[in-house]
């Protein structure tokens, strides 16, 4: 039941309990209770809009920053990652495999904003040994959604 509810929440956002219940053949109470539990357990962290900022007046840019760091005995990169994650400019932080240790997504008003954040805050952080910044120039797909026009529907109006 959790998996089915999560599928709807992640695809369509916070629909009404009654709507989810009808779709899944559950009672409204069951849905409310399950979602309540998942929120309390921090399985569900929140509900957000997916926005194509390039279509708005709002200046907003993102960059992927590969961070190399020195691991700590017994804690690995946890303390470093949690430290970096506390900055408001940081959108997400992942421990990753590959050449770098952490993949940090940073957002800012413009490229300069982000570059200064990296130079003044991120790179000098104790435990960070190197950074490599890639600015996002254009987004084609975001969180499972295509950014362009939705493909047109070619179906006939009536078919066998």
């Amino acid at each position, binding site marked *: 039941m959790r998996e*089915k509810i999560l*599928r*709807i929440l992640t695809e369509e956002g916070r629909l009404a309990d009654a709507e989810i219940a*009808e*779709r*899944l*053949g559950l009672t409204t109470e069951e849905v409310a209770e399950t979602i309540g539990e998942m929120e309390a357990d921090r399985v569900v962290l929140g509900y957000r809009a997916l926005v194509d900022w390039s279509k708005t007046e709002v200046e907003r840019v993102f960059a992927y920053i590969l961070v190399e760091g020195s691991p700590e005995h017994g804690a690995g990169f946890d303390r470093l990652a949690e430290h970096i994650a506390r900055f408001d400019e940081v959108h997400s932080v992942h421990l990753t495999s590959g050449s770098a240790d952490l993949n940090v997504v940073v957002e800012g008003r413009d490229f300069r904003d982000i570059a200064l954040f990296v130079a003044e805050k991120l790179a000098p952080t104790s435990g960070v040994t190197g950074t490599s910044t890639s600015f996002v120039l254009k987004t084609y797909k975001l969180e499972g959604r295509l950014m362009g026009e939705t*493909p047109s*529907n*070619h*179906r*006939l*109006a*009536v*078919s*066998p």
Partner: protein
Amino acid sequence: MSVEQQTDRISRLARDLRPSGIREFFDLVVGMDDVISLGVGEPDFPTPWRACDAVIESLRHGATSYTSNRGMLDLRVEIADYLLARFGVDYDPEEQILVTVGASEAVDLAMRVLLDPGDEFLVTDPSYVSYAPCVEMAHARAVAVRTRLEDEFRIKAGPLADACSERTRGLLFCNPSNPTGAVMRREHLEGVAEVARDRDLLVISDEIYAELTYEGTHCCFPTLPGMYERTLLLNGFSKADAMTGWRVGYACGPADVIEAMTRIHAYTTMCVPIMGQIAAIEALRHGEDDRARMVAEYDQRRRVFVNGLNRIGLDCFVPMGAFYAFPSIRSTGLTSQQFAKSLLADQRVAVVPGDAFGEAGQGHVRCSYASSISDLREALARMEAFLARLSAGEVTIEQ
């Protein structure tokens, strides 16, 4: 040239062949704006990109030729593996599988190889629009086996046996059903199998909607005791893999029937276009998650739509398969045609009159729920408004 001269050169068979009731209705809808169509017998999902990508890549490598008449061996092997793993039925890809232009071509081929002039073939009523015409095009007689709302449109052994004569060669039915969405589980199919054994029928089991079975598992007809030898199993990629336009289906069954069908197919069609076959191979190899995702979505829509129909006063049994609901419209006092045409004119919602699928469909309309939930809710709101206006005498009844 006069109309008379023109009709003279058309064969009696072709002259007598009526266009499908669905096509007639299609002509009414064309050109109307703002129509929400529940008349569509195909998925609203595009073909999963993996399959499209496989075809684009194959074109780059020059895969544009004919294939074996039976279909690419790679595809037949994948079909055999899939049917065995998914439904527990085992076919030899070399001799028992023919890839066809949709399951539709397989119905036509089957009738041509099974029927002699004057023979009879049983077809459920209501049923998919091409079944009876395919029997008639083979110069045989389609005999209706009526199914009833009280039985949720499942075939019952009694009426099935009653419809048999000495000329009856077999039975053609679709499970899960287009147009009703009804599902026959193993216990329902056993009665059909018994009659098939007693009357020596060849059964054509069209299981194109097998993957779209909700709340339980699909029972593949040839897995019933004694049925493997007398079943022609039809399936394809149009519905579960959202590949209607690619036109790929298949028939599996006794080697003699498949061989005879292949001979005709080789003359009339040569082979299914290679692009569709390549897409189908990809769908079988990697399409499981895509199928599951789409089925889960249809299942949600099914609940929302069927609940909605019952709430607004159109009684509808809960369909357990395909993506159709088949509500009764008897409470309105209208015929299926009047209901569908008036609803279209008054509220711009297209549904298909139930009698387009046979006399037993009278008093019903077929609604496809292969549309977004927001469209389904809007359609329900319009239908509710239609029913209110109808009982207030404000609707012009279209004939």
